[in-house]
C-alpha cells in the first residue's frame, strides 16, 4: 500500500497518457510481486469506444489499495455480451458491472431529429428503450452475483425547437428526463442495482466540456480524455464501499479549518465564523459537516490549542454550527497530529483506514500522510472559499445501503465519549457496567432488522466468531427457514440507544443446536452484552429440549478479541480442523447471564 501511494505520488498522473503509462508501470510492479492489494473483478460495458477506461479505473483502484481485474466489453457489444449466456462476460464472473450507454447511442436518430416522430411514437419509442435496458439489467442480475452500476442519460442542452422546446408535449428533453426517471425508479426497487447519475456528472463538469468532437467523429470516443479520468474517479464512489473501504470518521483541525484565525491569538471575538465574507466559508463548511454527522459520519478533533479556549468557542460563540456534542473525540492538546490520530482511532475502536483527516497545515498533512498512509489526507486548498467544494468532492463515505444505525452513528459515537468518561471515573469494570445500566433486546429477525443484520455480517471483523458474510437476500431466506433461527440484539443504556449491535444465526437440530454466526459490533465490546445473547440462545435451546449447543470459531487476522469467548464461557473444545475450532456446551450445565444487564426477549 505504501509503495503504491509512493509511486502514484511521484508520478502525479494528470493526462490520459500519464494514466496509461502509470498503469503499465503498476502492472509490472504487481507481476514482480512488489505491490499487493485486495482483488476485485470489474466489468465495464459501453456503447462506444472504451479506450482509456481500463487504465484510468486501474490506477484509481490501485490508489485505494485495490488491484482490480478489469474486463472491457467489445466496442458497442454490450447487448450481445449481456444476452450471450456462455460469453466471456459471464466466464469472467465480475463482482461489479458498470453499464454505460450514452444518450446518442440509445436514441440514435431521435437524438438529432426527435420531432420527426409524432408524439404518440415518441412516447412508445422511449418506453421501448427503457424496456431494452430493463431486460439487460434483469439478465445481468440473473447471470451474475455482481453489483450493477448503470448510467442514466445526459439530458441534451440542444433542441431543434430552440426556445419552444419547453412548450412541447413530451419533447426531446422531457423524453430523456422520463427515461431517467423510469431508470431511477427501477434501480430504487432493486437492491443490487445502482444508478450512476451521469446526467449530474455532466452538469458538474459542464456539458460543453464532456465531448471532444474530433475524438468523437474520428474514433467514436464519446468523452474527452479528461472527462474519462474524472468519471473513473466518481466510479470509486461505488467501488470503495463494495470493497468495504468506506471511511467512518473525519478528524478535523480547528484554527483556519473550522474557523478563520487562531483562537489562542485572536480570541473568541477575533476568529472568523458567521455571516461575513470571511466567516461564511467556515459557516457553510460546518453546516455541511453537520449534515454529514447527521447521516452517520463520526466527527473528531485534533488540534494544538488550550482545551479551555476551544471549549469556550463551542459553548459561547453564537455563530458556531458544530457543538461539543457533535464530536466523538476531542484531542485538544499540544501533541503531534500523528499520535492524536492514533489515539482517536483507539478511543473510537475504529481502524486508521476508516479515517479522513482535514487540516489546513501542509506540514501536518505531509507528516500524517507519511506516517499513517492508511489515513486519507485531504488536500485542503489554501483559500477557505474552496473548503466546501473540497468536502463535497470526498467520495469515501458511501455505502450501498443505509440503516437506522448508520444514520445515528455520529451521535452514538459522541455519546460514547460520555461512557468513556464514566468508565474512567468508575473503580472497576463491574461497577462501571452497573452504573451504565444496559438494557438489551433480543429479537427474531424481521423486515426492519434484516438489512442491519446483513450489514453486520459484512462489516464486523473483530468480535465475529465465524466471519461468514451474508447478503440481505440470504438473511431473509434464513429467517424464514424453520430449521434456522436468526436473532438481532439491540442495546441501550443511560447515555443513549446504540441500535442493533449484534446478531446470531443458529442451526436447530432436534438434539443439538449449532451456532453458525455470532457477532457483536466493536463499539459495544467489553460490556458483557455477548454473554446475555449467549444466555438467551441457551435458554431457547433448552426450552426446545436440545441437549448440546455447538459453536464454531474460525480464527482470522482480526478476530483475536473473540478467541477465548467460548472457552471463558464454559464450552469444551471438541475438534480442531485447519485452524477452525468446534466448541460445545452441555446444556444440562447451568449458565447465568450477567445480572447488571436487563434482557428483553421479543
Amino acid at each position, binding site marked *: 500500500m505504501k509503495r503504491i501511494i509512493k509511486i502514484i505520488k511521484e508520478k502525479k498522473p494528470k*493526462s*490520459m*497518457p*500519464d494514466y*496509461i*503509462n502509470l498503469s*503499465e508501470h503498476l502492472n509490472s510492479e504487481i507481476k514482480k510481486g512488489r505491490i499487493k492489494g485486495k482483488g476485485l473483478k470489474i466489468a465495464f460495458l459501453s456503447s462506444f*469506444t472504451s*479506450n*482509456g477506461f481500463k487504465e484510468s479505473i486501474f490506477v484509481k483502484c490501485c490508489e485505494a489499495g485495490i488491484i482490480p481485474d478489469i474486463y472491457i466489453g467489445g466496442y458497442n457489444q454490450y447487448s450481445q455480451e449481456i444476452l450471450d449466456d456462455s460469453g466471456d462476460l459471464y466466464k469472467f464472473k465480475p463482482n461489479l458491472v458498470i453499464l454505460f450507454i450514452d444518450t446518442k447511442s440509445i436514441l440514435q436518430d431521435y437524438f438529432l431529429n426527435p420531432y420527426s416522430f409524432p408524439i404518440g411514437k415518441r412516447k412508445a419509442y422511449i418506453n421501448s428503450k427503457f424496456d431494452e435496458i430493463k431486460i439487460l439489467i434483469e439478465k445481468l442480475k440473473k447471470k451474475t452475483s455482481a453489483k450493477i452500476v448503470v448510467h442514466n442519460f445526459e439530458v441534451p442542452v440542444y433542441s431543434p425547437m430552440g426556445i419552444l422546446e419547453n412548450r412541447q408535449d413530451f419533447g426531446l428533453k422531457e423524453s430523456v428526463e422520463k427515461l431517467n426517471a423510469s431508470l431511477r425508479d427501477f434501480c430504487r426497487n432493486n437492491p443490487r442495482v445502482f444508478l450512476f447519475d451521469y446526467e449530474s456528472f455532466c452538469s458538474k463538469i459542464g456539458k460543453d466540456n464532456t465531448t*471532444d468532437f*474530433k*475524438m468523437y*467523429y*474520428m*474514433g467514436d*470516443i464519446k468523452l*474527452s*480524455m479528461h472527462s474519462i479520468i474524472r468519471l473513473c474517479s466518481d466510479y470509486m464512489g461505488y467501488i470503495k464501499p463494495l470493497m468495504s473501504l468506506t471511511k467512518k470518521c473525519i478528524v478535523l483541525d480547528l484554527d483556519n479549518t473550522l474557523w478563520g484565525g487562531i483562537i489562542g491569538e485572536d480570541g473568541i471575538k477575533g476568529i472568523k465564523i458567521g455571516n461575513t465574507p470571511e466567516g461564511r466559508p467556515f459557516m457553510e463548511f460546518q453546516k455541511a459537516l453537520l449534515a454529514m454527522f447527521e447521516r452517520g459520519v463520526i466527527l473528531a478533533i485534533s488540534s494544538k490549542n488550550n482545551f479551555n479556549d476551544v471549549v469556550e468557542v463551542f459553548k459561547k460563540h453564537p455563530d458556531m454550527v458544530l457543538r461539543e456534542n457533535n464530536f466523538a473525540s476531542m484531542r485538544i492538546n499540544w501533541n503531534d497530529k500523528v499520535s492524536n490520530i492514533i489515539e482517536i482511532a483507539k478511543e473510537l475502536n475504529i481502524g486508521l483506514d476508516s479515517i479522513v483527516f482535514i487540516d489546513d497545515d501542509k506540514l501536518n498533512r505531509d507528516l500524517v500522510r507519511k506516517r499513517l498512509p492508511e489515513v486519507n489526507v485531504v488536500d485542503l486548498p489554501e483559500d477557505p472559499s474552496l473548503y466546501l467544494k473540497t468536502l463535497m468532492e470526498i467520495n469515501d463515505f458511501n455505502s450501498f445501503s443505509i440503516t437506522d444505525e448508520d444514520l445515528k452513528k455520529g451521535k452514538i459515537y459522541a455519546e460514547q465519549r460520555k461512557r468513556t468518561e464514566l468508565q474512567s471515573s468508575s473503580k472497576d469494570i463491574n461497577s462501571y457496567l452497573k452504573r451504565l445500566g444496559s438494557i438489551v433486546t433480543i429479537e427474531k429477525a424481521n423486515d426492519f432488522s434484516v438489512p442491519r443484520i446483513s450489514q453486520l455480517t459484512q462489516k464486523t471483523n473483530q468480535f465475529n466468531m465465524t466471519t461468514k458474510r451474508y447478503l440481505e437476500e440470504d438473511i431473509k431466506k434464513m429467517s424464514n427457514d424453520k430449521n434456522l433461527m436468526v436473532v438481532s440484539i439491540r442495546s441501550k443504556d443511560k447515555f443513549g440507544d446504540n441500535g442493533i449491535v449484534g446478531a446470531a444465526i443458529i442451526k436447530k437440530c432436534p438434539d443439538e443446536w449449532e451456532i453458525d454466526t455470532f457477532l457483536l459490533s466493536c463499539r459495544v465490546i467489553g460490556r458483557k452484552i455477548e454473554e446475555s445473547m449467549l444466555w438467551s440462545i441457551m435458554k431457547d435451546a433448552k426450552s426446545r429440549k436440545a441437549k448440546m449447543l455447538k459453536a464454531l470459531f474460525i480464527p482470522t487476522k482480526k478476530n483475536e478479541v473473540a478467541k477465548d469467548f467460548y472457552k471463558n464461557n464454559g464450552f469444551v473444545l471438541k475438534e480442531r480442523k485447519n485452524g477452525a475450532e468446534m466448541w460445545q456446551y452441555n446444556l444440562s450445565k447451568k449458565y447465568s447471564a450477567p445480572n447488571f444487564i436487563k434482557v428483553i426477549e421479543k
Partner: protein
Amino acid sequence: MESLKAIMASVLGIKQEKLNDNFSRDNSEEWDSFNHLMLMSEIEKKTGIKFTIKEIESIKSFKNLKDTFEKKAKAK
C-alpha cells in the same frame, strides 16, 4: 512549452531518441489509431494549436507532424 518530441514520447511511451523524420504510423507499433488521437489531443492541449480532422488524418509520420505543426504555428 514542451517540445513535440517530448509530448510524443510520453504519449507513445517511447524514448525521444527514437523519433526521427522516418518515424511513421506504418513502421511503429505504438503509434496506433487511438494513440494518434490521444497524441493530437495532447498537442492541442499543451500548445494551444488546434488541428482539423483533415489534418489529423493526413499526419502519417513525425515529419508530417512537424511540418503541419510549424505551418499552423506560423499562421497563428
